[in-house]
């Protein structure tokens, strides 16, 4: 059965939602999402440390969505242009040791799935010191991808959150996969 984005979005936005977005992103939209993130975190009286972490991770997660979503036509109003960005509060912080979840979703080409999966599995496998070493290696490698990224987006999410990334790939059609990522903060 093919993936139903609206159904998934509806299910993912159940519970204590601080912020949620479904749509296509431009640079300006990212700016306005980040403004709203600041407002909701302040309204929640988030402590400074969690506030900074969440803001940083939001920046990186949104820019990952902006740079790495694959869609047939970036400007077109097709479903594949949609990305999801959600900040959810943990309803039971006593039981599970985190305060917030950031959930993102975007369409990617089926052919990119394996590489992405291997990359996340590798990051999840590394310990804190190894993540730090890898981060510095990539920081210092002088390479920028054609998309303008420095290759540090995904690793930064692990480094800053201090937690493993949870992901899923949903089959959408013969060309596209919907990729979801959950970052616990």
């Amino acid at each position: 059965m093919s993936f139903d984005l609206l159904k998934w979005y509806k299910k993912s936005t159940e519970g204590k939602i601080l912020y949620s977005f479904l749509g296509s992103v431009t640079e300006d939209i990212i700016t306005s999402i980040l403004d709203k993130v600041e407002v909701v975190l302040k309204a929640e009286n988030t402590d400074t440390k969690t506030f900074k972490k969440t803001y940083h991770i939001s920046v990186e997660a949104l820019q990952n969505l902006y740079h790495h979503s694959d869609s047939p036509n970036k400007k077109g109003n097709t479903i594949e242009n949609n990305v999801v960005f959600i900040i959810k509060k943990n309803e039971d912080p006593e039981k599970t040791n985190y305060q917030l979840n950031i959930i993102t979703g975007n369409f990617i080409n089926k052919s990119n799935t394996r590489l992405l999966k291997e990359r996340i599995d590798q990051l999840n496998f590394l310990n804190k010191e190894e993540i730090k070493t890898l981060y510095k290696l990539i920081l210092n490698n002088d390479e920028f991808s054609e998309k303008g990224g420095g290759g540090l987006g995904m690793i930064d999410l692990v480094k800053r959150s201090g937690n493993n990334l949870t992901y899923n790939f949903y089959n959408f059609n013969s060309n596209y996969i919907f990729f979801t990522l959950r970052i616990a903060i």
Partner: protein
Amino acid sequence: MESIRIEKTRKTPDITFNAETGILQIEGKSIPENSIEFYKPLVDWLEEYGKTPKETTEVNIKLEYFNTSSSKCILDVFKKLETIYKENNKVIINWYYEEDDEDMLEAGEDYQSILKIPFKMIEMEE
């Protein structure tokens, strides 16, 4: 040589590169989608400045947030400063971070470990 003065925006920091005094300052948020476009003029300026630098070059970095693509560009800025330093000029780098912002302190330490140039870590009280 002309100085550089760029006002901050919601995604880019306030820049003052003063060619007369040798005081360079980067302050605010650095989270643009296209960091190379923002930082290239600064790196080019340093290349030129490095030909006849002031006796002392003082660099003040007061970043509130920066994204990973900026982090590579900031390293390029530091590498230009490192070249000036290696040519026996005095270069002082002051890395400011807010009280308890361990991530920002760690980011400064990461740069310090990559570069052969001394950093001064300065904690700012909130």
